[in-house]
């Protein structure tokens, strides 16, 4: 990373971006607080995508059950900070527990599946994701642990002493509503996760992952302990999911197994692939794009149709989904390696075309 001194232009760029991100929620709130919530959700999906990117993008292990770790983190938070068990631990204790627990689940999933490759791994991870969800949905009998499909209500928001993230406060003449506070918190966490990711990518481990992705047998021959390194990928990816889950729980105030279904896993995977697997910035772009596109369509489809035909020809929600599907297809047709492919991916793809 270090080495060359930073360019002035780079510094200015970073400062500008930082400024833009700092004022963003207020700009959004001025048009509608819903957009702040949508942005928060987008950041949450950035966290998830970055976590999944470690498994899929760096290590090349196709994981279709990633949302399970998100669920584990979310339930961990919900159970330890809600009236369900009467526990109300502070979030800085629960979040690490959630991350650790998700990490443990990652290893649990990874250990038996190390031998599997490609699509076999995909279906096993998919099964794993479903198994976790079914357990969350059914562990209300014979002993009530998760409260089953009824979900857990009244989950504590993040709070530090008297400062609660769910209340609106005015500070220096600015109104900080709950969503805006969460925005800054999420941004902070995202920053940390990005730094960790960038550092990981350039580390020995990161290179070992890439080696495994490119050729597992060769990697083994070069003295990489493929078992441990793959397990590490699962564990790291899972713990990011766990943290994201904890934050989701606190923001939402209510969780039920419905939030951790297969479709969500597929959405996160779509974000990773669409943005450009293995490229941290690409993955973030993918997550932001896929979180915003359906919402923007929500706001535009109806007025556009009314403007074009004077009435609603097809219900807006149907068009929204049709356009979303079409966008996925078109984006892949024109940028099959993702919007921002990683360097190695781009090379691979170019090589593939020359065949």
């Amino acid at each position: 990373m270090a080495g060359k001194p930073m360019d002035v232009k780079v510094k200015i760029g970073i400062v500008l971006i930082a400024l833009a991100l700092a004022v963003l929620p207020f700009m959004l709130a001025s048009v509608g607080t819903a957009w702040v919530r949508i942005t928060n959700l987008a950041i949450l999906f950035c966290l998830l995508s970055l976590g999944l990117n470690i498994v899929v993008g760096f290590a090349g292990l196709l994981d279709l059950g990633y949302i399970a770790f998100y669920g584990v983190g979310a339930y961990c938070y919900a159970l330890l900070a809600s009236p369900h068990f009467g526990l109300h631990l502070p979030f800085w204790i629960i979040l690490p527990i959630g991350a650790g627990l998700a990490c443990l689940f990652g290893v649990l999933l990874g250990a038996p599946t190390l031998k599997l490759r490609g699509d076999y791994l995909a279906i096993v991870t998919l099964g794993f994701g479903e198994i976790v969800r079914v357990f969350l949905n059914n562990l209300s009998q014979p002993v009530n642990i998760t409260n089953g499909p009824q979900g857990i209500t009244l989950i504590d928001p993040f709070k530090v002493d008297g400062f609660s993230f769910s209340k609106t406060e005015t500070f220096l003449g600015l109104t900080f509503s709950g969503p805006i506070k969460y925005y800054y918190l999420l941004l902070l966490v995202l920053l940390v996760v990005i730094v960790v990711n960038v550092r990981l990518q350039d580390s020995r481990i990161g290179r070992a992952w890439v080696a495994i992705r490119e050729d597992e047998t060769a990697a083994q021959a070069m003295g990489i302990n493929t078992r441990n390194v793959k397990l590490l990928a699962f564990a790291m990816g899972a713990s990011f999911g766990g943290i994201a889950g904890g934050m989701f729980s606190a923001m939402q105030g209510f969780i039920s197994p419905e939030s951790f279904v297969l479709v969500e896993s597929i959405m996160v995977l779509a974000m990773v692939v669409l943005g450009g697997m293995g490229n941290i910035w690409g993955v973030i772009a993918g997550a932001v794009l896929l979180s915003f596109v359906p919402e923007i369509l929500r706001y535009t489809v109806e007025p556009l149709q009314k403007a074009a035909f004077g009435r609603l020809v097809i219900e807006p929600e149907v068009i929204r989904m049709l356009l979303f599907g079409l966008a996925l297809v078109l984006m892949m047709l024109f940028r099959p390696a993702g919007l921002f492919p990683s360097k190695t991916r781009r090379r691979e793809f170019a090589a593939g075309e020359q065949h």
Partner: protein
Amino acid sequence: MQLSRAPARLRSVALIFAVLALAACGKQEEAAKSAAPAAAGGATVVKIGHAAPLTGGIAHLGKDNEAGVRLAIDEANAKGMTIGGAKIHFEMMSEDDEGNPTKGPIIAQKFADAKVAGVVGHLNSGVTIPASAVYNTAGIPMISGSATNPKLTEQGFAVTFRTVGRDDQQGPAIASYLVSQFKPKVVAVVDDATSYGEGLANEVEKTLKAAGVTVLAREKGTDKTADWKAILTKLKGKKPDAIFYGGMDSGGGPLVKQGRELGLKAVFAFGDGACSDKMKELAGDASEGMVCSQAGIPAQAASKPFIDAFKAKFGSDPIIYAPFTYDAANLIIAAMQKVDSVDPAKYLPALKASSFDGASGHIEFDEKGDRKDAEITIFAMKEGKIVPVAIIKAGKTIPFEEFAKGAGA
């Protein structure tokens, strides 16, 4: 060595952010302009929000709910109302929450941003509960016509109401009817492992056990299960006298059909999710004799005009919850009229004190926002139609003919 490329990427990411934000702003402003109390024939526009899944597995029920609200609003507009000295034009703002709990708060926030005067929705308990926290902060009254999870109104929010019966009102009713009518010794309880299905099944099981009935171990499918044969085969070996299913018609239809194919003789009973003529369509003759419950008084007894108006407008019968969302929208409008204000803070107390005769019977709210002493109607499938056979009120069973006579309907 990575750093040299990073800034360009960072910039492009920032650019995307900026473009998206701008696009969002532009769109939103347009929407805001049209949302402003603009003149629609010189009248002040008052928005009423409606949210339900309009895409996905239960989109048909979402659309049914939407139809109920639309009918109420169109009728109110046709009458032409003056509230607070101004002519009022109601407008429905209908949003697709995709049945996704994560989207609940976002939709709720959208309504809050658009300053809707009240919300009818959402459909699923799992979406309504997280959304209700946002409505509570924004002070917008919300009435769900279909969220039956008791927890919704037990969060201590002043703005949450529902016109549908809670699981713990409806479950005991259908269970006690089963016990009094069929005197079963062994009952099997099956559900679809959703918040609604399981919640209702739990309440039924409680009541049955309290009545001394042996309840078999719970069997569960999912809300997408079409193949019940394995479960039914297992049940057949245990010879239950009745089978209760907590879930929707799309699961319940195949359940009865396959049960009869396997030669099960038990009585099939359902909650409101599977209490429609659709059951006959899905299960054919196998549905004959099934019993089911619905909260409130059947619309054909309480409000024939509603059914007629609904048919005239949409060309079909309401599916399940449309009478409840219709009532919900009307309750909001009635409360506004009473206090002569569309301000949520002003009409909320009036809403709480409602005493209203709607398409689903008489509605009053208790202190939590639940329907007070909700009557529950028991239906039975007779010659391919579900017909009301009894009304259950405060634990007492009244045969329907008697009730209809008493009500003078």
